[in-house]
């Protein structure tokens, strides 16, 4: 009874509040004075954002740089050309455009457009997502070589690259799949754009960042002196998509213009360990085929295992969502409702929503996270399964060849190849 009364009185108070709000809007508390001294009221200035045609000019620049880099890498076979293109990209997309708009982050815009019915993706962002992928399907990852400012800034500091063992590359090469999965999960649930939030280099481009992000950026660049392009190889979620496209690309940079003389110079020149060495025909073909059949048969097991593991952690994953974390806080610690210093709780308490409504909203979001984390986990499981499958495929290779999925088309090896024309 008492509760009901309270509810009604709150409702009425809220109603009066809104009436009051309307009133204040329609008729001001203090009417506008009628000036006698001929005072003319100034206008509120509204400086306009960047012009729209400039956004499309960026798309044009991307197209031009991509065409140029592809031509330099595949046709002109010029490392110098690729290098200067990447310098241009750092200057234009990096320091001039300050790291925004970028193809890596556009994954999230596309995801949001597919999952949020109220979101309209700007056409320029969609083009930034599509154009590099299409180019990669034709020419390999020339986007990474010279058009991506994040890649380019790391390429410029790769001064003393060390060789990483194959298994380190394989294991850490799975991280981008996890990052891609999480980025899609968080943007599909409208929680966060984690790729943009944890972009380590945007602080340099803007010459301004949170301290922690600046530290992260410095660490990446410092590590990048020895481990060439650490972000591209072991984190970049867009690199996963580019890798798929590049693996089956129609054309790709070739190390030698004619015949390989097996001098190994290119393999030593590649800072990314992306050159495959010649492999002899396996001795026990039947045995390796059996092995391959086994790992292929295990693919669904990996997917289910990964999905199950993902669904196990859907609750902690969902805590990044502000609605979920607020609901959890209020349910676990009801005393925070009185805390005037907690801005989120204070705003929620004055919003007129009930705790039940908030909890219902939060559990709906959590349900979405449950489904999503099954998919993300399954995706990661499949990635593990496929990388094991790749390890068991023995393909006879006579020459030194770029690994099409991992090669960033930087064209360093071309300078080292003794065969010219």
């Amino acid at each position, binding site marked *: 009874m008492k509760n009901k009364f309270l509810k009604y009185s709150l409702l009425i108070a809220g109603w009066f509040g809104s009436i009051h709000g309307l009133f204040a809007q329609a008729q*001001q508390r203090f009417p506008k004075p009628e000036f006698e001294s001929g005072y003319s009221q100034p206008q509120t200035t509204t400086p306009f954002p960047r012009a729209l045609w400039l956004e499309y000019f960026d798309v044009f620049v991307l197209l031009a740089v991509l065409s140029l880099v592809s031509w330099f890498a595949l046709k002109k076979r010029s490392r110098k050309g690729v290098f200067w293109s990447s310098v241009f990209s750092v200057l234009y997309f990096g320091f001039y455009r300050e790291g925004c708009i970028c193809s890596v982050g556009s994954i999230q815009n596309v995801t949001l457009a597919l999952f949020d019915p109220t979101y309209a993706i700007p056409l320029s962002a969609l083009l930034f997502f599509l154009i590099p992928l299409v180019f990669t399907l034709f020419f390999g990852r020339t986007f990474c070589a010279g058009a991506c400012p994040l890649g380019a800034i790391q390429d410029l500091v790769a001064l003393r690259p060390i060789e990483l063992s194959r298994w380190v590359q394989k294991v850490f090469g799975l991280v981008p799949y996890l990052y891609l999965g999480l980025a899609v999960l968080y943007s599909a649930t409208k929680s*966060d754009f984690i790729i943009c939030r944890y972009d380590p280099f945007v602080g340099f481009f803007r010459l301004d960042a949170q301290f922690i992000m600046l530290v992260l950026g410095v660490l990446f660049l410092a590590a990048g002196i020895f481990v060439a392009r650490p972000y591209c190889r072991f984190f970049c979620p867009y690199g996963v998509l580019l890798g798929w496209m590049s693996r089956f690309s129609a054309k790709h940079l070739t190390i030698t213009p004619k015949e390989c003389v097996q001098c190994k110079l290119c393999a030593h020149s590649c800072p990314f360990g992306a050159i495959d060495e010649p492999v002899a025909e396996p001795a026990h073909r039947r045995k390796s085929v059996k092995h391959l059949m086994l790992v292929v048969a295990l693919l669904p097991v990996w997917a289910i295992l990964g999905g199950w593991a993902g669904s196990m952690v859907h609750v902690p994953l969902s805590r990044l969502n502000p609605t979920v974390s607020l609901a959890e806080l209020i349910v676990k610690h009801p005393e925070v409702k009185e805390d005037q210093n907690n801005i989120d709780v204070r705003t929620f308490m004055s919003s007129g929503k009930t705790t039940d409504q908030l909890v219902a909203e939060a559990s709906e979001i959590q349900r979405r996270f449950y489904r999503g984390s099954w998919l993300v986990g399954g995706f990661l499981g499949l990635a593990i399964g496929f990388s094991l499958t790749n390890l068991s495929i023995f393909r006879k290779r006579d020459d030194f060849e770029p690994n099409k999925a991992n090669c960033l088309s930087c064209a360093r090896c071309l300078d080292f190849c003794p065969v010219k024309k």
Partner: protein
Amino acid sequence: MSDKTERKGMERRRFIKRGMQATLAVSLGGVAVASFMKSYAGEMVWQIDPFKCVQCGRCADECVMMPSAVKCVHAYALCGYCDLCGGYLKPNANERSTAAENQLCPTAAIKRKFIEDPYFEYEIDEELCIGCAKCVAGCTSFGNGSLHLQIRHDRCKNCNECAIARVCPADAITRVPANQPYLIKGDFTAAGDKAKKDTSRMSDNN
């Protein structure tokens, strides 16, 4: 290994490559068409809805810009030109003067100018304003609410996800079409409302 099996192997590889190319092209095309249906030829920018804003002060701290790209703007048409201004003077001010001790603004970014008895004009110096919303809270509680926060697009970097939109407790920051980039109180009428409907918000969970 005979020539024949080798040729067969090559053919199989080419077949797989062509098949995968087609698969990738079709899936990319699918994503492209699905998102193109929901694309918008213009650009979106971030803006604060002044009627949703609760003046929590996070805009000053959380923007990637230092100082924040959020500034207080003055909707002059709504101002009462009060001598006793809740946005300019501290609640317990000693006197109604421009003395620093009486000013609510921590950076003295509001300029008070005498117009005629008893009216004063208040102007924001954007170079000094940090977007802390102290004056907005004062003006909204005690006055007409003509002072309010807006994202200034000559300063805003238009991040893909706005750092203050993410932490705004009232979900007051949304994407708006770039050709109507401001929600200034007063001229924020039916047209402004319509513009708002076409946009989306990250933290809107419905």
